[in-house]
Structure formats: structure tokens, C-alpha cells
């Protein structure tokens, strides 16, 4: 049991938790800024970015793909802003327009190009390949201290850990201006906080989280984790710091519970095969949100609670 867990489950669990938390953290601010859709947008435009990178470099190695995805994310953010200004439409409509168009372009690109020989397909883009990220070098619990064996961990673990550390540093450093500019942008500007660059930094951090998570777990988790844990956390507390803490907790629970349920749940129910861990993690996060809607102590909002 111990060895099997180390080899087959430890890395996917770690990656799932890291990806979920990395998406939930910036998701708190996106949800409060009514920009939750931007996480959705970014995770969709990642697909054409990755395919473009593959077509340009001819390899499926991680870094060109990450750079292609990040480039596509930045382009999409610029395009959304452009459509919003030139088309004079509301931000949600601009996001919807840009990400569906770019995602569709990515699918066309994928079908037209000769990518059949490599593991690059739409299903992979949606669900990721969490279950395949195994740690074959593990020989026992001692391997956790063995640098040689640790080097055999899937590279996504280290990549996500670095991204998560960067996100934590960004939020810690800019917590105060982010909070002020999210609540009251006019006041923020009047005390010298530059809303424009700060908002762009937040979206860039979101893009980095989305790209790093996408590679490991696919876009379903990314979209769910940007929205569900923060939205559920908002219903648990009326303070921003505590909301972020709750959202991290919910993200961890979703990832662990989702992974376990996907692996063993169907077997317990007598079915033969496991189901997609990514799909189950996203489902659990949605169920947590539903539970928070019914049970959360702060589910009463302005007006109702004033009595």
C-alpha cells in the first residue's frame, strides 16, 4: 500500500493540490472584481498558444509550450481590452468573444496540423493527465529524502511549487493595494495606487497560474478552481484575509477528495473503471460551493442581514 501510494498517488495528489491552490489564490480577487470569467478566458486561449508553440518548435517539451501559452494569455488580455474599448461592449462580452474565438482557432489549428503522433489533443486539454503523472523512482518512504529519487518526480511538481511560491509572494507584497483597488478603485487612485498596472499584474499572475496548472490538470480544474473555492469562501466569512484562507482550504479538500473519489469511488459502487480525477476534483469543488450556499454563515447578503 505504502509503495503503491508513493508511486501512483503521491505526485498526482501533490500536483492537484498545488494547481488548485495556485488557481484559488488569485481567484479570490478575480471573483471580487467580477472578473471571474477571465480565468475561464485564459485557460481556453492556452490551447492555441500551446499548438502554435508546437508548430513552431516541433517538440512537446514543457518550456516552449509554457511560453506559447503565456504569450497567448497576454495576447488575449490585450485583445479583450481592445474589443472592450473599440467595440464599446461590457467586459464579459469582450472576454466571451475573444476566448471562444481563440479556442476555436486552436481546435482548427490542432486538426489541420500533423499532431497525431504526439500526445496533444482536445481531451488532454480539457482533462489533463493527472493520473499519468506517476513517480516511478519511488522505492519507499525513504525516497522522499533521496535527491536522486526526488529528481524523478514529474516536473510539474516543481514547476507548480515555484509558481505557487511566486503567487504567494505577489499577494503578500501587494495585499493592501489589491484590497483597496478591488473595493474602491477611485479612492485607490487618489492615494496613489495605480489601478491599471496592478490589475494587469493580477491578470498576469492569473495567466501564469492557469498555464502552469493547465499542463498538469487540464482546463476544467483551472476554471473550477478560479471560481468555486473563492466563491464558497466568500460565504464563510466577511473578512478578506479569512476568505482567502478558506478558499485555500476548500481548494485542498477539493483536490484530495476529488482524486480519492475518482480513483476509488466507482470501485466502491461496483463499477469497473475509475473516472477522470480532474473532472471529479472540479465536481467536488462545485459541491462544496453548493454546500456553502446552503450552510455558509454569511450567505445572507446586504439588506437581508441588516435587520
Amino acid at each position, binding site marked *: 500500500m505504502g509503495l503503491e501510494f508513493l508511486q501512483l498517488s503521491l505526485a498526482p495528489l501533490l500536483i492537484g493540490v498545488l494547481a488548485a491552490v495556485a488557481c484559488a489564490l488569485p481567484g479570490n480577487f478575480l471573483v471580487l472584481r467580477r472578473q471571474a470569467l477571465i480565468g475561464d478566458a485564459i485557460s481556453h486561449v492556452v490551447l492555441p498558444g500551446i499548438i502554435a508553440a508546437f508548430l513552431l518548435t516541433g517538440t512537446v517539451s514543457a518550456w516552449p509550450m509554457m511560453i506559447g501559452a503565456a504569450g497567448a494569455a497576454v495576447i488575449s488580455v490585450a485583445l479583450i481590452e481592445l474589443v472592450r474599448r473599440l467595440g464599446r461592449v461590457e467586459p464579459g462580452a469582450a472576454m466571451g468573444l475573444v476566448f471562444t474565438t481563440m479556442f476555436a482557432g486552436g481546435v482548427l489549428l490542432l486538426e489541420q496540423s500533423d499532431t497525431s503522433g504526439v500526445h496533444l489533443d482536445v481531451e488532454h486539454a480539457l482533462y489533463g493527465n493527472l493520473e499519468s503523472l506517476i513517480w516511478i523512482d519511488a522505492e519507499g518512504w525513504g525516497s522522499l529524502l533521496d535527491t536522486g529519487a526526488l529528481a524523478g518526480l514529474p516536473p510539474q511538481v516543481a514547476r507548480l511549487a515555484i509558481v505557487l511560491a511566486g503567487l504567494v509572494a505577489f499577494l503578500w507584497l501587494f495585499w*493592501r493595494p489589491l484590497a483597496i483597488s478591488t473595493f474602491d478603485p*477611485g479612492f485607490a487612485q*487618489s492615494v496613489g495606487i495605480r489601478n491599471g498596472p496592478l490589475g494587469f499584474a493580477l491578470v498576469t499572475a492569473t495567466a501564469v497560474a492557469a498555464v502552469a496548472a493547465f499542463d498538469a490538470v487540464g482546463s476544467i480544474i483551472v476554471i473550477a478552481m478560479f471560481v468555486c473555492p473563492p466563491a464558497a469562501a*466568500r460565504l464563510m466569512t*466577511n473578512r478578506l484575509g479569512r476568505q482567502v484562507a478558506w478558499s485555500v482550504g476548500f481548494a485542498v479538500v477539493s483536490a484530495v477528495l476529488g482524486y480519492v473519489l475518482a480513483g476509488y469511488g466507482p470501485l466502491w459502487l461496483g463499477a469497473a473503471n475509475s473516472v477522470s480525477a480532474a473532472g471529479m476534483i472540479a465536481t467536488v469543488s462545485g459541491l462544496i460551493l453548493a454546500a456553502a450556499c446552503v450552510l455558509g454563515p454569511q450567505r445572507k*447578503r446586504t439588506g437581508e442581514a441588516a435587520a
Partner: protein
Amino acid sequence: MMTAELIARDGRLITTPQAEDAALTVRGLTVSYGAKPAVFSVDATFPAGSMTAIVGPNGAGKSTFLKGLLGIETPLSGEVRVFGRTMGRARRDIAYVPQRASVDWDFPARVIDVVEMGLYGELGLLRFVTRGHREKAMAALDRVGMADFAERQIGQLSGGQQQRVFLARALAQEARIYLLDEPFAGVDAATERAIVEVLRLLRAEGRTVVAVHHDLSTVGDYFDRVLLLNVRRIAEGALAEAFTPQNLQAAYGGRLAATQIDELRLGAG
């Protein structure tokens, strides 16, 4: 510029305050959303220790004027000086109170959290909130009669209470100039009195107060100067000089009936 500020009337020379003792001067401020300017080439001078109402019809650009001079909306042109310095160098001299309805009060924060946002100039990115900061925020809340509500979630406040919290945040800034956008909009009578009281105390301390104001009937009671605005500047100065039936007619066009102006019982005219 000075010659324009010397106005001859009734054979007397009236000098408006010179730039040296002005807290805030605005020259040629133009702000535009799209093709049509919302504020066009407005000059204004707010003397230190004065209390000015910005008055004009809906859509006259009153709020935009404030946002433009603060840099919240990027002006097409114009120059702003705060005690002779640029706005970028004088942020901590300015406290801005936006319209209450401009923010989402469902934001996860308590009253005290919002007031502490007023300490951002002092705290910056990473300085911890000390007992001294907390006491300053509580003192600001006390001045607006909201000390008992410090731990309350902001979404649970009435409109008047929300406005008081915004004013407390501005008080915590300990600024020399207070710019308020419709501070009396949708508040109860008790809150209106409390806010006026606080603004008068600020003036008594030598601070400068500028407020966008809608209710023409209280301009004379609350303020000592007026800036009449309708995209362009219509008039500016002490009430007796600028708050006249002719100027009001010019600012509001036909939208203000002569009888309404009569009811204001303006002294000058």
C-alpha cells in the same frame, strides 16, 4: 492670469485669492469620455480654509471634474497644483470621498478595515498596523459617531452609515484638502447634520473642503463659496458674488424655473 482674476464690479475691485494662498488650483481642465468633453477647460481656485460647493445640473461634469483633477480619469489637458506642487507629489495632502454608490458594499470587510484604508499613505505596502494606527482609525470613526460599528460588516450598514464610514476613512488620512463627491446623497437628516458638523470643524482647523452638492437650498447654509459648472465653468467665488440668479440660470439653462430660484432667497442679484 492675474488680470483675469481681478474683476471689477459696482466700481469696486474684487480680488480672488492668489495662487500663493490657494490650497488647490486647476487650470484648463478638460476631461472627455469619447468625443464629447464632459468637462471643458475649467479653471478653479480653492483658497485654503474655504468650503466650496460644486453645483450644476445632472451631467454637468461635477464628479468628472473631481476625478479629472485627481487623475482618476485621465484629463485631455489641464494643470493641477496642490499648495504649488503637482498632484503626484501631494497625494497625502488630499482626501477623496467617492460617491457612496460607486463601490460594492458586499466586499468582505468590516467598518474598521475600510477606515484603515485611509492609512495607506502612512502604511504603504508592508508596514504593520500598530496600536497607534488602530487608535487613529477608531478616533476617526468616533468623530462621525460610528465607533460602536467598528466590527460591523460594511454590507450591513444603512446608506447614511456607509457615508459616515467613507468620511471617517478620509478623516484618518489627516489631509489638508477634502474632496467629497455628493456626500449628502441618499443619507438621513441626522447623518447630513453630522457630516456638515464634521466639515465645519475641518474648515475651522484651516483645512479646505470641496464638495459636489445637489441641493441648491442648502448651499447657502453649508458653504461659503461655490463653483457653478456646466461642462464649462459658469462662475466661481464667494456666495454673494457667484451664487446669483443670473449664474444659476446660466448653469441650469431652462431647467431651473424662476420660482425655484426665487425660493432660494439669494442675497445678491
